[in-house]
């Protein structure tokens, strides 16, 4: 007689496989969330929630498809929800981990300016830019997350960089 696994055991085995598949995507997902939320704490919370949501909705994923673009899409949606949290405005605590790599205050100001410009971009443009240049994804994968053609993804990225170039002005020349 074949042994039967209880539902809990089934979930655990499935969770092991899911976790193994998800683990390499966590850091890129955090970078994506950071690029969209511009806040490290919120980004980590968003990815954690997205991971749980991905588990709950794992049946929705097309069998055999790559997990990364599917999960990154969930992260994008979670970040959108996080930005409209009603209480975040009131309860927001300062992010202590806004980072500058170099020790010069000028660099910190430059970084602030870049983030300001990023924040001012339309969300879809910022998403395209972050996917391409912060997650360093090739265009086919950018297109997969954006849900558009590769050419459309290139256009979105191009427009976003053009907007950044205008907004940053001379500041773009500060860093190599």
């Amino acid at each position, binding site marked *: 007689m074949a042994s039967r696994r209880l539902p809990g055991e089934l979930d655990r085995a499935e969770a092991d496989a899911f976790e193994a598949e998800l683990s390499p995507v966590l850091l890129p997902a955090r970078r994506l969330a950071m690029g969209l939320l511009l806040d490290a704490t919120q980004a980590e919370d968003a990815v954690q929630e997205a991971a749980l949501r991905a588990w709950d909705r794992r049946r929705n994923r097309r069998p055999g498809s790559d997990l990364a673009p599917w999960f990154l899409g969930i992260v994008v949606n979670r970040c959108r929800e996080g930005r409209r949290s009603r209480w975040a405005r009131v309860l927001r605590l300062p992010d202590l981990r806004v980072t500058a790599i170099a020790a010069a205050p000028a660099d910190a100001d430059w*970084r602030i300016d870049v983030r300001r410009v990023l924040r001012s971009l339309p969300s879809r443009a910022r998403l395209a830019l972050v996917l391409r240049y912060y997650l360093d994804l090739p265009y086919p994968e950018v297109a997969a997350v954006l849900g558009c053609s590769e050419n459309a993804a290139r256009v979105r990225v191009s427009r976003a960089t053009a907007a950044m170039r205008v907004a940053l002005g001379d500041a773009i020349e500060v860093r190599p």
Partner: protein
Amino acid sequence: MTLEPSDDARWSSILHAALDTPVSAGWDLRVRQRLRERATRPHRAPRTLLSVTVSVVLVGALVAGFAITRGTAGTPRSSDPVVSALESGAGPAAPVAGGTASYVWLTSASLLYPRGCAPAGGSPPGCQATQTVRVDVIDWSGALRHQFVLPRDPAYPSSADAIVAVSPDGTRALLRDGRVIDDAGHVVTEITAMSPLLEDFAAPAGEIGDLGVTWLSDDSGVCVAGPSSWIRDPGAASKALQSGSSGGSPDGLTLEEVLLRGTVRTVASLALPAPVATADLAPPPTWGVAEATAVACDQTSDSASIAIAWQLSSDEASAGPSASSTASGAASSPTSHALLGSVIGPLSWALRLSTGAVLYERSWRGSPPDGTAWFYASGDGSLLADYRPSGSGCARLALVRLPSGSPIPVSGLPLCAGVLGIGSDSSRLLTIGSSTGGGTATVLDLLDASSGRIVRQVRLPGYFQAQAAAAPYGTEFILLIDGHLFLVDSAGGISELALAGVPLFAVNRPSGFFLVGPG
């Protein structure tokens, strides 16, 4: 436009340099742990309805955004839908009288790592970051007046919220170490009497609670509200933290007036209702984390507004409306209690600043459905706004005229509307909420606080967060939303304030409620 390979490398470098941050220690382990917990817990009912709702909301936002950018909604004067929505439909904002003599502070924080450290992958041992807080001070005409970096305090090298409170006119700020700086960043004095208290204030938020600090209306000093035990023994909170205690058990709420010249006066000490045992709740809970706030201290109207929210050590909570006060600090016993199904129990009082006499007091009779409690009051202390349970999944905004306690009826606000700011003269209120009718939208309302009437309502496609500061002596607001800064006048006129080179991340409300945005 096509991108050259060199452009690819350049943009990648720019984004990595601007966005790389250290990953919290053990974060990925925590994510995987949560995942395992989720996988092994009993299945819950599917969330199909919620998923559909969210999908509809997102599609609605996209459609609304598309319609706006295609010019089908009104005649926008700007290509930015937020700017055009705010500036259309009403005239430009009238200039603020005396606006060049009072200021709003915008802050942003940075961590500076030594060269060679790689924050993106977690800081290696020995990589000690240094925090700086940059302040951009603008006046009410929108002109940038000063830019400076906050003086560092070796005692709190990692504190981003170094500014405790900004004075109503923005010419002074109290720092966490007791120093007072002016709008140019120069230290003008030090309130030594505040230092021990503020050391406690620097404890991690949510662990032992908080103090409320706001400036007196004439900039002569500050009002401090906090659990009485901490005010009496400034080291109590730190000791509680060091001993591993979850926090003090506040025996009351004390309001002190601390002047810049160093004198300290206890305005009032108010008793908190004692937790009670019930059939459902034994043994009786004890007060846990307390979060106090002094929301207004005005000498002209001789009024102060303070509030406290607390969390019980039990899963249940109790609260009563019957605290009383004496000017000398003695507190009387509470007389009644009401069991709440919540861990939050807020109380608020209006006091006479000169004597400490209680003019008005109120507590919640139910539990907030989400979030936590918070209170807002006008600079002159005559208008109080807070949230009350509504049973609809969102707290309901309630306005009360002080000291009479008479409610001001408000209608027409969207679901979950929250306060962005209250005009210093109590005549206007700026709120934010959301609406899903006809596409998801953020709804900003300017209210006439005397009648509850909506003076102007603006719908913005999509969801936005916002912050606002109230002009110190008038009815106007500065509004920060979606990376834009606007001046809002009492008639609903709105004009964008164009600031070059200022990071529009956060506004410190000069009423003493310290808001620091991300980044």
